């Protein structure tokens, strides 16, 4: 196939506008939605940017998630053990049946019904943080006052993590997600987090309590190592994702005043607005990554066994063949079917929790702060282009 768009060297991350996917990525998608890509280690693999192709890859069990098979599409200073098989319990980098065994132990804890039952508590946590923000400001950093603490407190309560320890946890997990950090620093952070979870598991063995980790301690035959890795995964996933959606989503609403006004006047639009913000923002901007375990043809391209495949969520969610005028933030559009929580058996286990949190938090913020606005020019909002999950580092707001 002839192509005018050059084969990318690693996944394009350079953005022109804060909310639009990198233009190199969308140009590539429009020309070749399943494209070759040169990985930073020299491997000639693939980058999938089209919606249909992304879904096809993620649903196909011939594409493995095993850590020792997948490659990073960005240049990372990684400790060498990344290339070894996943430790027991690190289920996102495993395949069925190993993955299935762990996932089945957790599925019942994250049902739509159970997550909806958390509504009053999440509402309370949200109201408390908004009241505290009002007392301290204006101005305020929306990340520190609102976006980070709300999902953080919710996941800590759900898992049974003492909330007093969250600062340490957040500091170390931020290091883990920093793309420019040195291998030794990342390793040190990973070790600290692991020890943190090991201590927690030990504590739960002694006093299980009425929470998710306590339930796993008493209700399963998982080893301490497995419990530690599962806990680590849930805690990190529960923090970094929703927090970035809340902050970047608020920034996007502030930059689209007509959309913000619509959501403020009709809070019941939140259900739909959350799906559209998930699509529009596509904060998982690097991966998911897979590796072909046999030759697979996707949209006429032959992916050979052993080759790495990186799926671009922003690419897929901004594919005009699936979502017309993808560059328009439209909280009334049908945005379900976006790939922001992934697809296939690894699709986000906590997605129904994330939905409930966002459906509560965005309308509450808009209701409590009718004059909310940025406290700095939009171009000065520091973007997380340098982090594994996209978003804003800070969002200075006033009212």
């Amino acid at each position, binding site marked *: 196939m002839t192509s005018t768009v050059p084969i990318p060297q690693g996944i394009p991350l350079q953005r022109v506008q804060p909310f639009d996917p990198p233009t190199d990525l969308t140009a590539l998608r429009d020309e070749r939605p399943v494209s070759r890509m040169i990985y930073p280690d020299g491997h000639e693999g693939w980058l999938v940017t089209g919606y249909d192709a992304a879904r096809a890859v993620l*649903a196909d069990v011939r594409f493995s998630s095993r850590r020792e098979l997948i490659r990073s599409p960005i240049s990372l200073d990684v400790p060498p053990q990344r290339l070894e098989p996943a430790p027991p319990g690190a289920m996102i980098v495993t395949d069925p049946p190993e993955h299935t065994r762990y*996932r089945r132990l957790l599925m019942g804890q994250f049902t*739509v019904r159970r997550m909806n039952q958390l509504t009053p508590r999440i509402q309370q946590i949200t109201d408390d943080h908004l009241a505290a923000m009002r007392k301290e400001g204006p101005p305020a950093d929306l990340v520190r006052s609102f976006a980070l603490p709300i999902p953080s407190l919710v996941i800590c309560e759900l898992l049974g993590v003492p909330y007093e320890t969250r600062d340490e946890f957040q500091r170390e997990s931020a290091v883990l997600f920093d793309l420019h950090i040195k291998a030794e620093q990342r390793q040190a952070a990973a070790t600290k987090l692991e020890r943190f979870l090991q201590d927690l598991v030990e504590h739960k063995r002694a006093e299980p309590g009425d929470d998710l980790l306590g339930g796993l301690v008493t209700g399963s035959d998982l080893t301490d190592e497995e419990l530690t890795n599962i806990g680590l995964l849930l805690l990190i996933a529960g923090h970094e994702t929703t927090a970035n959606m809340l902050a970047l989503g608020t920034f996007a609403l502030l930059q689209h005043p007509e959309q913000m006004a619509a959501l403020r006047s009709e809070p019941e639009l939140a259900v739909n607005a959350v799906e559209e913000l998930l699509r529009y923002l596509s904060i998982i901007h690097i991966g998911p990554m897979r590796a072909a375990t046999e030759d697979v043809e996707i949209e006429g391209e032959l992916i050979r066994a052993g080759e790495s495949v990186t799926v671009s969520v922003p690419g897929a969610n901004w594919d005009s063949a699936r979502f017309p005028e993808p560059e328009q933030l439209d909280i009334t559009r049908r945005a*379900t079917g976006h790939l922001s*929580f992934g697809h*296939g058996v690894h699709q986000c*286990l906590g997605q129904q929790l994330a939905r409930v949190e966002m459906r509560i938090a965005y309308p509450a913020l808009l209701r409590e702060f009718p004059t909310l606005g940025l406290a700095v020019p939009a171009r000065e909002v520091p973007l997380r282009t340098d982090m594994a999950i996209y978003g804003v580092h800070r969002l200075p707001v006033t009212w």
Partner: protein
Amino acid sequence: MFVEANPERCCGAGMCALAAPEVFGQDEEAGTVLVLASPPDVEHWEAVQDAVQLCPSGAIRIVMSRVDEQPI
């Protein structure tokens, strides 16, 4: 139309229960898919189609008659 679910394939994402709550539920303990109404009411057909499309693990499907039933 009828709906079929295979709890063995289910990964508990909850998309069916979210998209078509009158037709699909989730087992309280296991978190796996439950069919609540087959055949579903006509007014829920569109939601059922959405649910099938959204299911990440291909654990639910539409069949035109019970004669077509085979393991997913």
